[in-house]
């Protein structure tokens, strides 16, 4: 594994569109070639080297390339977008769309991220030590095929509209979540270890949601059906089991009606 270190030297006046900051783009390139990759500030295109100092060369393949971002990347968007392999470490904060549409590899952000991170994700790991914004692991707007796979782990809180149209994969939120979780969900798992504000599982057809704390405004479309003991994220606990959303359509699989499951910790 070869490491490329990007250090933000000049903060942008607007925001940097950094979709080229991926192991896939850096692979097989020398530091100077990486510095000449395009990034955009507003509508202006310029080389990456205008903003970052680049140290180290990329590995032969994406899987052998690690990128470390230093400096305040609060205004850098789309890091790791559509990446398929390799590793990215952001030492501080990052902006929107981090790990959007990612297919593989790992991203570790040590600070906070803004909205739309991990949207349309198909695989890989997105680890955020701080808080995440809105639309975490959600579907791109208009799209009915949301997160397909992979893992998103947020240590802090998440904003609203987490996991809209989720089809697969897992999202774990260590803190609280705002409104709208797994809206229109058709698969996958969302675990909220803190409290959820409300509208949890609206129009959900299939999939699982775990809430460890309280749901401030639970939806009337979910019905309590019993208690279960389950192992979730490595620990076993008892949960109240609700099914829903009863207002939605209910597919039948192998003779059994399919519902979404909402578990609240007892």
């Amino acid at each position: 594994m070869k490491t490329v270190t990007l250090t933000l030297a000049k903060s942008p006046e607007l925001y940097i569109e950094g979709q080229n900051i991926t192991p896939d783009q850096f692979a097989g390139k020398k530091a100077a070639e990486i510095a000449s990759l395009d990034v955009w500030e507003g509508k202006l295109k310029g080389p990456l080297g205008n903003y970052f100092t680049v140290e180290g060369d990329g590995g032969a393949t994406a899987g052998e390339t690690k990128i470390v971002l230093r400096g305040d990347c609060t205004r850098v968007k789309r890091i790791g977008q559509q990446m398929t392999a390799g590793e990215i470490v952001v030492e501080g904060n990052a902006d929107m769309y981090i790990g959007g549409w990612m297919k593989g590899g790992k991203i570790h952000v040590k600070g906070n991220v803004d909205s739309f991170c991990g949207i349309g994700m198909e695989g890989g790991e997105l680890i955020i030590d701080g808080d995440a914004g809105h639309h975490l692991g959600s579907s791109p707007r208009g799209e009915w095929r949301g997160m397909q796979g992979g893992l998103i782990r947020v240590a802090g809180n998440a904003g609203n509209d987490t996991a809209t149209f989720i089809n697969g994969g897992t999202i774990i939120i260590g803190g609280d979540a705002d409104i709208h979780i797994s809206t229109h969900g058709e698969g996958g798992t969302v675990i909220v270890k803190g409290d959820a504000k409300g509208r949890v599982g609206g129009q959900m057809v299939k999939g699982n949601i775990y809430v460890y704390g309280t749901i401030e405004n639970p939806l009337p479309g979910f019905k309590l059906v019993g208690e279960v003991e389950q192992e979730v994220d490595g620990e076993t606990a008892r949960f109240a089991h609700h099914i829903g959303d009863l207002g939605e359509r209910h597919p039948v699989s192998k003779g059994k009606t399919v519902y979404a499951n909402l578990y609240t910790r007892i």
Partner: protein
Amino acid sequence: MNELIVKNGFVFDPLQGIKGDRMDIGIKDGKFVETSALGNPKVIDAAGKTVMAGGVDIHSHVVGPKVNVGRLFRPEDKLFKSPLKRGNRMEMGFSVPSTFKTGYDYARMGYVFVNEAAMPPLHSPHVHEEIRDTPIIDNAAMPVFGNNWFTLEYLKNNEIENNAAYTAWLLRATRGFAIKVVNPGGTEAWGWGLNCESIHDPVPYFDITPAKIVTGLIETNEHLGLPHSVHLHCNNLGNPGNYTDTLDSLKLAEGYTAKNNFGREQVLHITHIQFDSYGGDSWRTFESKAEEIMDYVNAHDNITVDIGQVTLDETTTMTADGPFEHSLRGLNNLKWANTDVELETAAGVVPYVYSPNIRVCTIQWAVGLELALFAKDPMRTFISTDHPNAGPFFRYPRVIKWLMSREARDTTMKTFKWLERTIDATSIDGIDRELTLYEIAQMTRAGPAKALGISNTYGGLVPGMDANVAIYALNPEDMPSDPEMIEKAFSQCAYLIKDGVVAVQNGEVVAEPAKRTVWVDVKVPDNAQVQRDIYEHFLRHYSVGVENYKLFDEHVHNPRAIEVDATQ
């Protein structure tokens, strides 16, 4: 003096019966001329290439409110598919491309005329604004009549002359081109949550049957002598077993002959007939009835059809057939947009994924190709995808490839998950026919132009006509062994000359000659009754005043009015 000569190409012009002869084509000031009339023309070398007239599309949803609804509610249709600025303007989208991409892509395929398939009269200003923004290609738009309150009332009372006067008024008010009929009566019934599933189902309140609407409109059309015929989207579209309803609709044309001065011979055009050629009594027993349908079409000269070929893409369905879109939404559980247009029509939009893994989709694919391959007269059977309903228009080259190559069909069929069941439910595997370039020219330019009544201007290479030429890098004497090359050649024409200007070269747009709006201006005798009916309906029922309803001249971009005198 703008002079061009296209030299040494293999020329295919069905309007003149030219079948691949090596000829020169002369162009002067935007019109075809005899080569002897040229002074010192610029030479375009077409040696070893196929030369045809610019393409004519008889049915495509490219402009107007429902197309725009598709654009608005499918942002994902643009995501990662809009990266390039190739022409003068940004190009965006896939199944519902932006107006600019629409114009450029048609030009790249060598098309010059596209007939917008359904214009809600109330929203005609929007249609014309988008026509203005669709570069290069000439457009016409057909207002929908089959569920219009005026039409229903006049035809119920057998008032053909009054209906004709109203039709002429509406064509002028909307700068429309022809009489479009979508699910006659059924879309009006949708206002009651109902549908007209056969041509004998009466429309609620109006108490008129779809059969009577269609025959009344055929009589109206021939009374006026319009360039195009009635253009019908049948009742019960898209459902298993609907071929009997389609045959009933086709039979409505029996006994009628075309009366017009535009060379048109049919009285009824059935559009995207692929969606109307299904047997079986459920999705489980779904099968092709293309042969039965084409047997009838082949035997009746007063009917034309376009196929509406399924291209196996993810696309966006949109039609004025409101109840159909509602039932489609129930099938795939995707998002659905629906609207009612006052006294006139309705519309729905639903995304749809035609997957090679789904048996019904692959049977639909086979049905479309069967229709074209069973056709005895390619001058009456046209290539379309009912863009974007069965697939995007820029798949026409792929449809041509399938029609011209058994090998290409077999290659596609090998990707089907339910190949055996598709073969059992259709006759596609038993058809070896491969269409010729001449037949393709009939199905994509000469035939549609004749059926639209514009073959004096478009669809041929006759001196005096608009100088629209498409040159494809295909040598008819040495056709490529790889069918993919056929698709490539028709996707990126070597040259498109539009009105004597080279617009496309090697598949890239190099110039944007002025585009036109083609409409039909009919003169009818003064009709006080109809004037009063229009006044009354606008006073009582419409949400707009009649003077705001009619298009202003400023709305109509570079108009070309086709004059029809029906006062005699």
